[in-house]
């Protein structure tokens, strides 16, 4: 099946579903039709696992005035769709009114679609094995410090369509490709890990992934204890910088938590929430990003939104319902499943960033390190980022991937340390925002960033 055929199929199913809803005298309905072919292969030190299949189903919202019900089903079988519609209708019937709900997206209005790579449809298990062979050719397995190395390849294609009784009928397709490598090394009782990856909407070259990851892990061997507890500057590599900020920003920029009064920035609109060098943009229109789509998951056109402008909070991100509850328009941020996973068609829309981007400013990572008298360089994703307190901003994380910086030089790797602080305070105490933003696997891409003070302990 070609991409165009997939688009025709999901639009047809969505349109048919709304017709079924009308046949069942359902007053208002929304069909979210999802169809994604996914193939995945992992090679963990020579242990191969492979999986493919079609993730296919429909999420159905039904409204009776302000009473809303949701049900979903796997597959596109006609009778199953009809019974799921009836089920969603019955839930709406017994649900209390949601004062925020004012109907589904009306009319069809689409933004720019991202890149589609038809070559991805031609990939199969043979080509994934070939990719793993390419990645593994870079590795010297005779290095006795290498405990294990793993490789992964994933590709997918498909998309979703949204139809509503209010006249919306639109779709968005995607092709994705990702490859990664992860190394575990050890020497004299010291055990370190590191990896690297490529990802995008097109097939990407994989050269350098495995050797870069292994080199990074090997460079981390020979770690020494930090010894005590001290307040120091921290310098974060671009991808780790993104990881550090992701969890906090997801809640702080959310229009749903703003409306629900659980957003710690709820009273900070047009106020300074970060240093003036920090500008944060939500980009739903980057054609190279998986988030660059024609519509969001309730049928509104995606867009690009400046959230923080020179340190000032300018807006929150909204879907239709939460936008209207705040007297704002949707920003095209209705997401289903979201970053933390979940099958999209099994979820109602929720507000999440498309892809947050921190605007690049001045100095690259090396320049930032050179300006530190004593501090810590973070080179891997710390453990515990996602358990930080989103309300108070307090965080306490731990990492085995850090180096001591002294007099502008990286001195030696460190054994496990903990890093503690408060997100809201540290955003106003950034020393440097870098010039070297990288694509990350997180909902945010960031350059290297230096913070003035975090508590370091071991």
């Amino acid at each position, binding site marked *: 099946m070609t991409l165009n055929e997939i688009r025709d199929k999901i639009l047809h199913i969505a349109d048919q579903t709304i017709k079924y809803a009308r046949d069942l005298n359902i007053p208002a309905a929304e069909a979210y039709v999802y169809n994604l072919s996914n193939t995945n*292969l992992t090679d*963990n030190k*020579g*242990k*191969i*696992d*492979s*999986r*493919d*299949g*079609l*993730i296919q189903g429909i999420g159905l919202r039904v409204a009776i005035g302000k009473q809303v*019900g*949701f*049900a*979903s089903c*796997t*597959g596109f*079988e006609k009778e199953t769709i009809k019974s*799921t519609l009836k089920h969603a209708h*019955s*839930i709406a019937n*017994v*649900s*209390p009114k949601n004062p*925020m709900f004012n109907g589904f997206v009306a009319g069809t209005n689409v933004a720019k679609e991202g890149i589609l790579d038809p070559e991805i449809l031609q990939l*199969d*298990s043979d080509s994934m*094995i070939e990719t*793993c*062979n390419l990645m593994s050719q870079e590795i010297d397995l005779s290095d006795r410090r290498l*405990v*294990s190395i793993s490789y992964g390849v994933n590709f997918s294609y498909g998309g979703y369509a949204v139809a509503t009784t209010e006249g919306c009928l639109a779709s968005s397709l995607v092709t994705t490709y990702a490859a990664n490598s992860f190394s*575990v090394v050890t020497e004299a009782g010291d*055990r370190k*890990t590191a990896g690297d990856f490529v990802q995008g909407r097109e097939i990407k070259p994989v050269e350098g992934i495995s050797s870069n990851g292994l080199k990074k892990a090997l460079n981390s061997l020979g770690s020494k204890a930090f010894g005590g*507890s001290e307040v120091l500057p921290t310098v974060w590599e671009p991808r780790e910088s993104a990881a550090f900020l992701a969890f906090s920003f997801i809640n702080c920029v959310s229009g749903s938590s703003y409306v*629900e*009064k*659980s957003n710690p920035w709820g009273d900070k609109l047009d106020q300074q929430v970060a240093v003036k060098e920090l500008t944060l943009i939500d980009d739903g229109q980057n054609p190279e990003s998986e988030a660059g789509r024609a519509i969001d998951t309730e049928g509104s056109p995606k867009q690009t939104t400046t959230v923080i402008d020179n340190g000032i909070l300018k807006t929150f991100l909204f879907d239709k319902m939460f936008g209207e509850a705040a007297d704002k328009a949707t920003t095209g941020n209705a997401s289903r499943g979201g970053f*933390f996973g979940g099958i999209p068609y*099994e979820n*109602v829309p*929720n507000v999440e960033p498309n892809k947050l981007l921190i605007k690049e400013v001045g100095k690259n990572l090396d320049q930032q390190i050179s300006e530190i008298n004593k501090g810590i360089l973070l080179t891997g994703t710390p*453990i*515990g980022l996602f*358990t*930080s*307190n989103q*309300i*108070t901003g*307090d965080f*306490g*994380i*731990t990492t*085995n991937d850090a180096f001591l910086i002294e007099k502008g030089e990286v001195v030696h790797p460190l054994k*496990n340390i*903990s*890093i503690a602080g408060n997100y809201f305070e540290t955003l106003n105490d950034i020393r440097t925002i870098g010039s070297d933003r990288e694509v990350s696997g997180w909902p945010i891409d960031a350059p290297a960033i230096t913070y003035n003070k975090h508590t370091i*302990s071991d």
Partner: protein
Amino acid sequence: MENGNILDLLHKAVEKGENLGVNFIEARYDDLNLTTINYTNEIIKQSSSLSRKGIGIMAYYQGTPGYSYTPELTLEGVKEATIRAAKLAKSTDSRNKIKLDFDSIPTIKEKIEVKVKKHPKDFEFADKLDMLKRGVTAVKEQLEVTTTIGLYGEIYGEKYLVNSEGTELYWVPLMVDIRMGGVVISEGKQSQGFTGWGASTGLEFFEEKETTPEITGTNAGTYCKEQLEAVAAPSGKTKTLVSPQMGGVVVHESFGHLSEADFVVTGQSPIADRVGEELGSEHVTIIDEGVSPYGGLYLPYDDQGIKTGRTVLLEKGILKGYLHNRGTAKKMNSELTGNSRAINFMFNPIVRMKNTYFEKGDLTFEEAVEHVNTGVYAVDMSGGQVGLDGNFMFNCSRGYLIENGEVTKPIKNTALSGNILELLKYVEGGTKEVTIKTGYFGGCGKGGQGGLPVGFGGPDMIMDKVLVGGAQ
């Protein structure tokens, strides 16, 4: 779909796969129904009823697996999935260096039904919403909150397995869960309290003394209120009393995952090839169990059709074994442990935990607190992460200071971290009562399969040298 038709489809898949030249086929059918109600600020933020139905085919060719799945419950759909699974297994075999074939076991033909007093399918949506309303009322009785949260979750359905050995297995998973929470953001004050659990039972679970919506809501409100007056946790290595739920998460996340044999056969686990070694103090015995006398998750069989048992991972500090699927058990010449699990038909079974817990000790709670004397009582957590090197970090969302042998003031959110292989050596005892917790919300994540229901617990455990991380 009728039971006979499902079994017929699964047998056709097995037959088709064997004709394609693979050595073994497992064909699974899931028909799961999941209901979730998110009642935030007394509005239904999300209510969903999900039907998750499909077939997954695992093909093994010379010890190399290939998995394919389909939502199309037709002979054509199932045959296509079988062809794809067989192709994956065969075409990737040339690169596969760790062949995990397995020995034949006797055919199993079993149908397991669970009898409960109040099966959730027999109750209306409004009945479940009413429980959340009662819980929210209880939260609000404790303090004036900015946000109230009530979550209800249930899962039930049917699972079938047919394989090349002629096994026909049918069983019915079941789980219900209620969580309540309160958030305060006001005049510079910020706090939150969140609690609740689930059970592999019917709705009668919410009539038991400690788990009514009113009690859960009262607890959430109380914990939120406590946080408003909480003091900073001490910073540095601290003697800590960890509750059953906190210790259970530690043992699951940090030790349990390291004992999963798929990490062991690849050498990625730091406890690979260390059976017989002393990894913990004499006070540490760690169990993984499918059906436990202490409650928790009810899991009679895994997704390869292996009856779950009681696996001793660590006994008085000595490593006794690992958690296996059929392939890793043969590879490591071990007993079958029934730990091959998949979150749904879209995933292949991988090695996962069941109910993982510390065995009981011989102290009373008062004796344990007195033993700690000065330190922290870590009661509840809001997530955690571990590394393959044994390092862990958990966020203690509810805890108290222990001063002069008594539990005193609540502490602010703080991180507890360390390396499990170091920490187990500093376990100094446990109390006499074991509790195992489970639930619909949360669950275990591995290999892209998030939210798998598991059980975890233990007694209150005394651990020395836990790194408590607070900001200066």
